[in-house]
């Protein structure tokens, strides 16, 4: 706070008539203006730097991968030969994982959020659960992998199946879905509930017919973002043992599988440049998928941003 005092005295000094002081102060004024300008330019250049990084990242990937995108790339399985390699198995695996993870995590996460916001009593216990959810959301994804490996792959004997992978990812995104759904429910104004109660609605009618529809866009945004996190996730699936060389599309939840990020990792860690380019092509597919989901989420949020606190 001392610094504040200094600059404030200097500002007050500006008002004195003493000639010497005003010369000193005009010099100081020039200096202050200079720093102000300099800092503005600094902020501006960092944001430009951040944008340049994003542009370089995307341009680099497009340049390396675009020429490898062809119909064959989508319809071929992976191969030892770069020219014949494709992402059919990986895309099928990713879609399965996306679907399964969503169907495990969304009902659980949203209902947990409704319970915590609307029904749970205010107690130490609930507060503890809340802190706990926050910590789970910050836990490294690879630790979820270790948990999935012991619980689903070994104790429950699901082997390296789609089921084990999706359950692991569902655990991973569950805390994120709960937190974002809670935010959405919290943002519904109290007056809406009170109006419904005033009209004689019961608790469940208020929650399911008034609060939930109002919170739905917010909940959807959170759900889309967390599910898109699940399809980008690599580490936990590697830990539970998803394969990188799969030459079939999974037919049931018990089958072994691979997903796009694992395919990318596998190709990127090979020494040959052709495989790096293949990885770039697969990244393009993955990013298009993710960006589409992100845009959908942003669109939903901006269109329905009615109840914002």
């Amino acid at each position, binding site marked *: 706070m001392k610094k504040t005092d200094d600059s404030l005295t200097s500002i007050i000094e500006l008002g004195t008539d003493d000639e010497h002081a005003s010369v000193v102060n005009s010099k100081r004024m020039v200096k202050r203006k200079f720093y102000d300008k300099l800092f503005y330019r600094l902020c501006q250049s960092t944001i430009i730097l951040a944008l340049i990084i994003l542009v370089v990242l995307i341009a680099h990937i497009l340049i390396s991968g675009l020429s490898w995108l062809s119909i064959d790339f989508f319809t071929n399985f992976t191969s030892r030969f770069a020219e014949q390699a494709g992402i059919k198995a990986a895309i099928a695996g990713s879609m399965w994982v996306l679907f399964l993870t969503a169907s495990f995590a969304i009902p659980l996460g949203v209902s947990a959020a409704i319970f915590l916001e609307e029904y749970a009593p205010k107690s130490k216990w609930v507060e503890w659960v809340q802190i706990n959810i926050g910590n789970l959301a910050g836990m490294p994804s*690879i630790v979820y992998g270790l948990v999935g490996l012991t619980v689903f792959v070994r104790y429950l004997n699901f082997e390296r199946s789609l089921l084990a992978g999706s359950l692991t990812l569902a655990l991973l995104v*569950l805390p994120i879905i709960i937190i974002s759904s809670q935010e959405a429910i919290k943002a519904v104004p109290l007056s809406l509930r009170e109006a419904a109660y005033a009209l004689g609605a019961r608790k469940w009618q208020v929650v399911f017919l008034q609060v939930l529809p109002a919170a739905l866009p917010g909940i959807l945004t959170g759900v889309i973002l967390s599910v898109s996190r699940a399809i980008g996730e690599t580490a936990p699936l590697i830990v539970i043992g998803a394969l990188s060389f799969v030459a079939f599309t999974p037919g049931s939840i018990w089958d072994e599988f691979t997903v796009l990020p694992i395919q990318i990792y596998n190709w990127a860690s090979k020494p040959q440049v052709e495989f790096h380019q293949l990885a770039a092509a697969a990244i393009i597919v993955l990013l298009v998928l993710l960006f589409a989901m992100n845009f959908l989420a942003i669109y939903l949020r901006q269109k329905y941003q009615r109840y914002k606190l």
Partner: protein
Amino acid sequence: MSITILTTIAVIVLLGKESFEFFKEVSVVSFLFGTNWSPLIPPHSFGVLPLVCGTMWIVLGSVLFAVPIGLLVAVYLSEYASDKVKSYLKPVLELLAGIPTVVYGYFALTFITPLMKWINPEIEVFNAASGAIVVGIMILPMIASLCDDAFSAVPGSIKQGGYALGANTFEVIKDILIPATKSRIGAATVLAVSRAIGETMAVTLAAGATARLTADPFVSIQTMTSFIVQVTMGDAPAGGIEYLSSFAVGTLLFLMTLVMNIIGNQWVFKSRIRVV
């Protein structure tokens, strides 16, 4: 709700159990303070410090890169950018945050490392610095948006008070905004450190798999996370010492990030301003 409690209990019990098996064979002291890590090649040695050292290089580098830049980006967003510019920039930041880590790993390996080798050909293909930079890029959006939240929670009246006294924008930022939000900036940093510790794919791809204690960031290292990937990819038999060692490392990783997250969330709560 009970699922989350079950998950927590499962994490603690499972990690605890498997680590207990591990510590039956290797003493805790020699694990925590040993300086030689060679779990896969005999003679086995399980001193975790080289892995911690690798992780610390990544954390240090990425935080030094991302915190100043993230802070300035947040300052720009909250103090300088017009609403229109902000409405374009925020989604861009969110896009950056949504890019999967394996993509960043690819970027480090095929762009940053060659760039660094172009400047200095002596640098190894896999090196800590490249991993640190890319993890820095990864955590940048997170720091920027946490700081931006903190800045927008500062009541406008304090800032207007500063302007009324004749302070210019830089002085308001330096003497009012930053001091008022320093605990939340601290919290953002701590949460970013926790993210960097747990980051896996980018460092596995970029920073190599050579566990060693080193003071040189331009050589290949191994982090705790990339060790777990290495073991689980290599089909280590369940119950074997290599397999168990990955759980011991996982436990350490879990405890480190847990402490960081608790501290970080505490700081956010303490800073009285309502948490978004």
